[in-house]
């Protein structure tokens, strides 16, 4: 009886398994459980179905190629080889690839990233920046050789021949594409001379559009202070870049239409406005004229004589009353006057003069009642009952 060491028997078992062609390259279907990603990047989990389980190892070199994050409960098909881990005496499936079952790998990765970024709020409307109405210059991030750049240039120049376009050439597919696109977005933000950016490419399969679902690209668009219009040609699904962009368009041509104003159309619009203000102005003038005409047809302006005769009658009646009042007043005054006149007659100095008295006045009209008022040789007037005398004083005597 031969006795083996543990190492020998394990090594023998491994040898047997490794020789087996089926186990060397095998695909196993099952559900992931107990998934652990070690800090080294290696992944350890169990694959199970209703009756059995198998341990699976996926080394970092392989797991980093996965576009999605494996999770417990996910149904997958794992490809690799089954061999023995000698230290633990355990057979394991060493996975080279792993694809989700039911959905494609890319769509799974897409859904996962979409969910994550949506939870961060990257797609929220409140982050959307308004596009400039009349950009000074438009930045374009796409392939320098594709149809996209030609379409954008054609449409942009047709709408606005003077628009300034700046192309930042990038690869739009392949492993380099996401990094280049993200760098280009940041570069335009540093450059600072474009008011809006178009990021995109012509149509393609999900794989060909994959760069626009890359987290780096999506985050670069989200971080851009310059508004971004996505221009990724696709028939059905949107890319994550479309969700995060400030505006999305279905094709590069459409992006150019959104970003570049049609100056000919604007010109027509402004001429319409010119016509409108002229029309409104005419209407206003017509309106005011109509008002003037209406006033002119009013009774006052039509038969002004009526107004005049009315007023004349009024004036006449006032005049009449005035005359009456005046007459009464005059009669009253006359009566009063004759009474006063009688009184006055009694005081009349002429009556005194008639009795031989006289009134003496100086030349400047002062009545002389005191001889000291008068100097020698002064001229005086003496009023008599009839006539007056001009006299020169020889001498004065004091009283």
């Amino acid at each position, binding site marked *: 009886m031969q006795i083996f060491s543990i190492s020998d028997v394990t090594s023998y078992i491994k040898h047997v398994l490794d020789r087996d062609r089926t186990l060397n390259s095998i695909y196993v279907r099952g559900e992931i459980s107990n998934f652990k990603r070690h800090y080294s990047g290696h992944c350890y989990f169990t694959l199970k179905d209703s009756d059995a389980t198998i341990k699976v190892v996926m080394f970092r070199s392989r797991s980093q190629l996965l576009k999605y994050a494996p999770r417990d409960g996910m149904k997958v098909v794992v490809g690799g080889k089954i061999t023995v881990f000698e230290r633990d005496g355990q057979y394991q499936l060493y996975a080279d690839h792993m694809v989700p079952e039911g959905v494609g790998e890319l769509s799974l990765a897409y859904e996962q990233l979409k969910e994550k970024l949506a939870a961060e709020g990257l797609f929220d409307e409140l982050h959307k920046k308004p596009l400039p109405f009349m950009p000074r210059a438009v930045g374009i991030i796409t392939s320098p050789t594709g149809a996209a750049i030609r379409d954008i240039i054609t449409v942009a120049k047709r709408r606005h021949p003077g628009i300034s376009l700046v*192309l930042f050439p990038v690869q739009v597919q392949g492993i380099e594409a996401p990094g280049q696109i993200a*760098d280009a977005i940041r570069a335009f933000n540093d450059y600072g001379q474009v008011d809006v950016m178009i990021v995109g490419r012509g149509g393609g399969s999900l794989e060909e559009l994959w760069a626009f679902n890359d987290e780096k690209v999506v985050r670069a668009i989200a971080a851009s202070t310059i508004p971004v219009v996505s221009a990724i040609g696709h028939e059905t699904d949107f890319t994550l870049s479309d969700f995060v962009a400030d505006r999305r368009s279905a094709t590069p041509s459409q992006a150019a239409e959104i970003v570049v104003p049609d100056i000919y159309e604007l010109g027509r619009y402004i001429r319409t*406005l010119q016509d409108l*203000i002229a029309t409104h102005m005419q209407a*206003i003038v017509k309106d005011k004229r109509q008002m003037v005409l209406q006033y002119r047809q009013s009774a006052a302006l039509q038969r002004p004589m009526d107004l005049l005769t009315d007023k004349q009658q009024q004036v006449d009646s006032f005049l009449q009353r005035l005359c009456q009042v005046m007459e009464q007043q005059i009669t009253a005054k006359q009566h009063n006057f004759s009474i006063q006149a009688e009184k006055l007659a009694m005081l009349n100095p002429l009556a005194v003069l008639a009795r031989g008295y006289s009134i003496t006045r100086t030349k400047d009209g002062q009545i002389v009642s005191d001889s000291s008022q008068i100097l020698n040789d002064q001229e005086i007037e003496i009023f008599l009952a009839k006539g007056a005398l001009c006299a020169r004083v020889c001498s004065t005597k004091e009283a």
Partner: protein
Amino acid sequence: MAMADKINHTNGNNDVCFEEALGKLELIVKLLEKGELKLEDSLDKFAQGVALSQICLAKLTVAEKKIDKILQKEQGIFVEKPLLFTEENS
């Protein structure tokens, strides 16, 4: 009237941007359409509107053809080259 105030300070100065001038022009159209202004004010706004529309049209006329560029970043420095293959069938 607030709408009138907003456009009061534009007597055809040419340094307004297109969008601003267009906005003011549209406002004047609305004001005149309402027809609530005094005749003199209407005429004033009308004159402003004509001036603004001319500014707008002038801004649309393409004085020079801008040269399109290819931008590249080489060692952190922006390098601009003319973008040449444009006009074939536009």
